[in-house]
Each structure stands twice: as structure tokens, then as C-alpha cells.
């Protein structure tokens, strides 16, 4: 890590702070200072150049940078951020698609290493992911019956003979007529395909759903139907969600708690009601100010200046400081830590510390 300096180092044990334990429900998923790095290895030419003394380094993207998060049973956590903030990568770590590069991921108190084979299989089945684009996550050559029924049969949740009945039950649950079972994904509308993606995840009786921009591609009227379906399923099946979205109005509608990420780091986390009424972090405040709503007529848009920096070469100290109105000398060198402002309200900003943003 080229830019690592003393100021950037955050003790890994920070995850155990009382703030993160303040949740009432028992955590189903715990992330302890989880990082995910993607490394682009040097190609042959660069290796030869290095051998001659060019000193080229591997490119490292810190997609997720020491994020600690707990999700309680039955809770809906909304994960918000702009493109490249690492929200999807974090979702994939939670869903077990990417192993974390550092830190620990626990499901019901155990890491995967601590589980035996049966527990591990149970855990991977209980956490399911719903993707953004059903067309690229549903096999176009399989009938809906096989898309939804394959996993439960393989994992022994239903026998081959029971598959039809099981699939019909799941399809009904998501509001699709079971007679469509023999059709292929392309024969459905966008909203129906989204429902098939949800049905596939539900078919293995999950407890925890990671929804990655699952309604982003849908039209407004269809989006409302799918959001209502998520709410209904949560009540009927007592599901827990990690709901990833760039759309704050969607997250506000569904979530109990909202986590805001910027360039791989968590900048603020709070109960939804608190976050939307009293956002603390300057980035959260800017995001909320930029949400267009029906009430804001003829508004003068007051944008946040600048663009999201490249995650290949993020700014030093607080990642947000080049765009922040309040940035001071300290923000340029020292990474702010998450501090608790109120019950369950965490924010990573030097403005909250006694030292302020000064040097």
C-alpha cells in the first residue's frame, strides 16, 4: 500500500465498539473490518521492465476498505453510494461470492472456517443474492421451472417428483402464475423477470437476501409492485435484507437502517429516520440535498462540485476531502474513524471530533 502512513492505520479491533453492538436484534451477519482488494497483476512487459529497474507496481483497488457492519435478524439495512463506492462488492462478500481479503465475515456468530461442512452448506443456502439485471443472471436456455427448481433439488430440499409443486408454490409467492413455469426468460416482461430472479433466490428457503440494485432497471409502476413484494415477503417469511441501491428514495422506503459508503469506506450509518432527518457526514448531507422530490418545484440545483475520484488512487486522509466544503488540513492526512453520535448513529468525520478539521 503505497499511500499507507500512520494516520491511515485504523486498529482492526475497532469493529467491536459498543456502537456496533447497540442493535436490539441478534446479528445474523457480522462484518469485522472487512476489506476486499482487487489486484491487477503485472504483465510480462512490466515484469521485464521491473527487472531492468522500472519499479512498476501492481495496481490495487480497495473496493471495500475495513467496513464493519452488523445486520440483525429481521432487519432491513439499506446500503447507499454512488458508482465505484464498493457497495456491490460488499454485497458480494456478504453473499459469499467474494471471500474477503482481510477481516472476518461471520454468519450467526461463526466464520466459514469455524463451521463444519453441513453448517457451511446451510449458511450459503440461507444467504441468497438477487441481481440487478435478470436477463444476465437468468439462463436464457432454461425454462423457469428449471431456473427456480434446480437448486432446491440439488440441495435436497425437494425431490425431483416434488420439484413442480415446489416451483409452483414459490412462483405464487412472488405473484407469478405457475402456468408460466414452462416458459423461457425472454417470454416475460421486465417486471416478471425480476420476480423470477426473486423466486429463484426464495426457492432454497433463504433467511437473508442481498438485493443488489434489484429494482433499478424497472419502470416506476413496476418498481412499486416489486418493492411491495419485498415488503410482503419480509413480513411473511421473516426475511432479513441487505438492500443495495443508489436510489435514496427506495432505500428510505424499505430500510430500518441506512449505511452510506464512499470510495470503499463506510462514512455514515444510522437508523433510517435519523439519517434522513439529521444526516451528519458532509457527503450524506450532499447526497440528500441532491435527491429530487416531487415537492421541490422549480428548484435551483445546488450540486456538489467535482467527481468521484478513481478508486485506484483515492485521496489521502478522508477520501471525501477534495469535494468537501468543510475540509481542513487534518482531513488531508488523517483518516476519520467512525464515532457514535447518538444511539446507533455512526459517522466518520473530523468535524465531530474535539480537534475539528484543523491541523
Amino acid at each position, binding site marked *: 500500500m503505497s499511500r499507507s502512513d500512520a494516520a491511515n492505520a485504523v486498529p482492526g479491533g475497532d469493529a467491536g465498539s459498543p456502537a456496533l453492538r447497540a442493535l436490539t436484534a441478534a446479528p445474523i451477519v457480522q462484518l469485522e473490518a472487512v476489506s476486499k482488494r482487487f489486484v491487477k497483476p503485472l504483465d510480462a512487459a512490466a515484469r521485464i521492465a521491473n527487472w531492468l529497474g522500472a519499479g512498476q507496481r501492481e495496481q490495487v483497488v480497495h473496493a471495500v476498505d475495513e467496513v464493519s457492519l452488523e445486520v440483525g435478524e429481521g432487519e432491513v439495512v439499506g446500503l447507499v453510494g*454512488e*458508482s465505484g463506492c464498493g457497495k456491490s462488492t460488499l454485497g458480494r462478500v456478504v453473499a459469499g461470492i467474494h471471500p474477503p481479503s482481510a477481516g472476518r465475515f461471520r454468519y450467526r456468530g461463526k466464520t466459514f472456517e469455524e463451521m463444519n461442512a453441513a453448517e457451511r452448506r446451510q449458511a450459503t443456502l440461507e444467504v441468497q443474492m438477487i441481481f440487478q439485471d435478470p436477463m444476465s443472471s437468468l439462463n436464457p436456455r432454461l425454462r423457469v421451472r428449471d431456473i427456480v427448481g434446480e437448486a432446491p433439488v440439488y440441495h435436497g430440499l425437494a425431490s425431483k417428483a416434488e420439484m413442480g409443486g415446489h416451483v409452483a408454490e414459490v412462483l405464487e409467492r412472488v405473484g407469478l402464475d405457475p402456468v408460466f413455469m414452462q416458459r423461457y426468460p425472454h417470454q416475460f*416482461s*421486465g*417486471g*416478471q423477470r425480476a420476480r423470477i430472479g426473486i423466486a429463484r433466490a426464495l426457492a432454497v428457503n433463504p433467511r437473508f437476501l442481498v438485493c443488489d440494485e434489484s429494482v433499478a432497471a424497472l*419502470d*416506476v*409502476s*413496476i*418498481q*412499486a*409492485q416489486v*418493492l*411491495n413484494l419485498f*415488503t*410482503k415477503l419480509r413480513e411473511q417469511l421473516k426475511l432479513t435484507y441487505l438492500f443495495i441501491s*443508489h*436510489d*435514496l*428514495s*427506495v432505500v*428510505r*422506503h*424499505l*430500510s430500518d437502517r441506512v449505511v452510506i459508503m464512499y470510495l470503499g469506506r463506510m462514512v455514515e450509518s444510522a437508523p*433510517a*429516520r435519523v439519517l434522513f432527518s439529521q444526516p451528519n457526514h458532509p457527503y450524506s448531507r*450532499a*447526497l440528500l440535498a*441532491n*435527491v*429530487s*422530490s*416531487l*415537492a*421541490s*418545484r*422549480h*428548484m*435551483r*440545483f*445546488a*450540486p*456538489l*462540485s467535482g*467527481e*468521484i475520484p478513481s478508486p485506484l488512487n483515492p485521496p489521502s486522509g478522508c477520501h471525501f476531502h477534495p469535494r468537501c466544503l468543510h475540509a481542513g488540513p487534518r482531513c488531508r492526512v488523517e483518516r476519520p474513524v467512525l464515532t457514535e453520535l447518538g444511539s446507533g448513529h455512526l459517522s466518520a468525520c473530523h468535524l465531530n471530533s474535539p480537534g475539528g478539521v484543523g491541523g
Partner: protein
Amino acid sequence: MSASSEPLLKVTDLATHFITRAGTVKAVDGVSFEVARGEVLGLVGESGSGKSVTGYSILGLVDPPGQIVSGSIRLSGRELAGLDDEAMRSIRGREIAMIFQDPMMTLNPVLRIDTQMIEAILAHERVSERAARDRAVEALQKVGIPSPRERLEAYPHQFSGGMRQRVAIAIALLNRPSLIVADEPTTALDVTIQSQILAEMQALCRDTGTALIWITHDLTVIAGLAQQVAVMYAGRIVERAGVDAVLDAPRHPYTEGLLGSLPSAATPGEPLRQIPGSTPSLGRLPPGCAFSPRCAYATAQCRTEAPEVSGQTLGGGVERQFRCHHPLQEPSR
């Protein structure tokens, strides 16, 4: 604008159909609206409502098998429907410009930005290349691109998505058009970048008097930007009025349904007031009112007879039009 003067753009009974072997798709079917100088019209609809085809029709960009089958498009009193390609080309880019959702529709990936911008100026005007370059710099500056003189020499791939969209907007502004048609230009962008672009478009319309047709599916963007809103469903404008009238007191059930579907309008956790069913395929529209299968107020009349446009004057010269047999009651005030 005085009542006698003609609006900048007047579209009357526009119909754009796609005539294929599988049947005729009426993508735009009898659309009428007006845009005044400096006004922002929000054209709202879901996918397949015909909002983009309406925009393309104004610019004469509908390709076969699509064609404008009837209706008139008058820009500053001049008829655009039926103009040949050459005449249209001299108008497009000079008097009307278009901004697409994907800026790479506008930009040529293998040419530098300066080549593309200077070409767009020289195509319409006899000016020196140096003057054209200065104007390109000015346009880039206007849309908030830092160090424009250096950035002119970059290729499109060297810009980020938001910057590329700004370049596309700068190209649209080059010849100081009187009308810009923008087709979902911020849909693919992040929230903070979207509001930067909205802020710049808003300032441009205010400063230059350019009229804007903003095509989008996002009613919340329209709320902040537009003065006039037209809601499209299945190739028709179902309701059109000033932004406050449409958003606060919709008369058409579809507008009401769209507004109810927005998560921002609902109490968190409460179910959204969803519209049942899904948008019909334009090739197989139901008889009568196209919205009737999804409408809670539909009667036998709606299922057989397509509603005509009804008008209503709201006072202050504001007018409202809608297509519904059973319009919603106006809120009593």
C-alpha cells in the same frame, strides 16, 4: 409570451408509426403540445410509451420502418414534418439539437473532441477554424469542463461518464439552438453528477432562452426542472398541464398511479399504491382507452371507446388537457 404570438414549437396530432410485416406499431399516435421560448417541457412516461419516438420525430431521426404518418411539427412557424433529409440536416444541430441518454451516441470514439466540435460549427456556418475553436472552448466552459482548451484535444474515452455527457451537451449548444431535445440524459449518471448537469441545463435555459424538452421516466427530476409536464402512455399524451397542476392535482388516473408508485411520496414501510398489471405492448393495444385494463375507474365505455382530449382552463392562461372518460375530481379548495 403574448397570446397572439406563435409558440416556438407547436406539435399537432403527430403520429409516428412503425409499419412492419407483423403489423403496425403506433409508437406515437396523435400527440399535440407546444413549447414556448425558454420553457422546459417534461415529457414523462414509462418504457414503450412513445416519449423517445416523439423526440426523434421532432428531429426527423425516425428510421424506417418508422415514419411520420400524419400531423404537423412547426418550429418558429416553419413546418418540419415532411422536409427532405437535406433540409432537415440544415436545421438539426443549428435550430434543434438533441442530447441522448448515452453520450457515445453523439460522440465519435475515434475522433478528438476538437475535430467533432469544430465540424459541428463549420457544417452550419462559414467561420474560420480559429473562431470555431474559440466557440468550442466557450461551450465546454459553459458546461463546467475544467481547462477546456487542453481537454479539447482529448478523445471521448479519456473522459468520465459525467464529463462525456457534458461534452455532448456542449456540442448541442454550439450553434445556439432555440430548442434542445434531451432524452434521459442523466439517467445513467450518479446522483451528484445528475444534479450538476441539471444545474447547468437550468442555467443555460435561463440565460440563453433555449427551450428544452426533457424526456424522462423520473417524475421527481421533472418536478424540479420543468414548467410544463406531459405524461405519455401507449403513444398518447394522457395529461398535459403546468407542473404544479399535474403533480398536485392530476386528473388522469395514470398520472395519479405514477405519482402513487413513487417511494418518495409514501410513508416508509407502508405499501406503495401500485398500478396493477404492466404496460401493454404497442402492437397489441386493448380497444378503447389503452389504460383501461389497469385502471381502477374503468367502465364499459372505457373498454370500447378511446377518450378524446378534454380541455380545462386553470386560470392565469394556464391550460390543462387530458384524455379520460372519468377524470379524477379536482380537489376542492
